């Protein structure tokens, strides 16, 4: 019998043997969800994607039982309000992109200053 404590080691050995035979070729360990945002800081590319606000009709729904008519009504309202919402999206996006640009400028400036400070410190050594 395999003891529970030994199971992982046994499973690993078995997987290695099968891999040596060319099996488990598709179980590469590659992961489908975007690891770049799991727990860490979102990269600049993703931030700029998030900065652009665009209300998607797919995100309007009702989870109530028999909620299909409510979903349809919400999406109709969205269409009717489209002109106003586009204006709101644009204003919010303008602010977000402005802030992001200012942040990136600030980051570059900090990098330059840090580089200069390090160079000064090396010269003084």
């Amino acid at each position, binding site marked *: *019998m395999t003891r*529970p404590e030994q199971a*992982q080691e046994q499973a690993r050995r078995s*997987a290695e043997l099968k891999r040596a035979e060319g099996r488990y070729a598709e*179980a590469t360990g590659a992961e489908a*969800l975007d690891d770049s*945002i*799991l727990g860490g800081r979102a990269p600049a590319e993703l931030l700029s994607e998030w900065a652009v606000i665009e209300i998607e009709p*797919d995100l309007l729904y009702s989870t109530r039982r028999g909620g299909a008519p409510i979903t349809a009504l919400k999406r109709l309202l969205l269409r009717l309000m489209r002109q106003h919402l586009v204006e709101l999206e644009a204003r919010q996006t303008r602010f977000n992109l402005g802030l992001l640009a200012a942040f990136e400028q600030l980051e570059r400036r900090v990098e330059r200053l840090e580089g200069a400070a390090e160079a000064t410190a090396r010269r003084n050594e």
Partner: protein
Amino acid sequence: MTAVHQAVAGAGPYDAVSEQARAWRQLLSDAGYGGADYAGQVAPGTHGFESLAQLEPAPDDLIVIRYSAWSGALGRLLERPQRKLLVYHNITPPGYLWNHSPALAIQCAVGRIQLPAFARSARVVTADSDFNAGELHAAGADSVRVVPVLFEPGRLAALGRAPEGDGPLVLVVGRLVPNKRHDRVFSAFAAYQRECEPDARLLCVGPALNPPYAALMQTLADASGARNVRLAGGLAQDEVNAAYAEADVLLTLSEHEGFCVPLLEAFHFGVPVVAAPAGAVPGVAGQAALYTDGDAAVTAELIDLAVTDAELREELERRGGERLEHFAYERTAQAVRDAVGEALA
């Protein structure tokens, strides 16, 4: 009669926090306490909760705050003079949610920032696992009582309609949310099906974060190449029970867990558990689960062992029984009564 009210950010028909509030309410009623349960938001189909805006506690009442996400209504409770008892159920790190549900990510981000304030405001601070107690200590709480989830096996008795099909059944129970890593489940199950058991079935029970995330998971499941995969959404308790009764393995590859009630449910049904040793899982399951190192092939081999090695299954069932004794209802009920008694003293 002293009233003990419970408050949660959001209540739903299936989620573990609402289930715990209901279990505590029963216990509190049996112990002679009055009071009611309130939520900042009540999802359709949820019973037993009133709007938090309607909470009007008397000066001597106790407010039990169940903390798993921030809400403005919950935050305003801190200004009230009544005694408070904090139950920390854990808050999902927002990094898991920014890309899939920004609104919930904000609730979680603010919730984590506000955790020290909630801990400071409470007379008694409790966590339902050692893992969660560790987070409370890190947030500055000095004294934390560990009061496990109140596990009431009675609700697991009724058996509904069993899942269709033959072949070993791999069961996953938990909401479809990013930290549960269903993407890894699909990879591991596809590997198991290809290499070990072509007729195997995968049943994922639990409501999705939102419809777009449900669609994403369905796409990933299809892309994995696995067959016989069913994403069932939220099921009635008797159908979940029937799934456990038929399951050959409970698989949980979650990356962040505050407790993981399905572990105890699997032990109750004698179902072997294959798990990733993350968050509170090792503390709850102890040596009664098979732990994977995250490699999909290793997970597949562990599932195969759990399905085919009868003696291993027997040993895991025995150990699962011991874990259930550790989390026995009366033992936890006494811990709940002690915590409430201390908060009211």
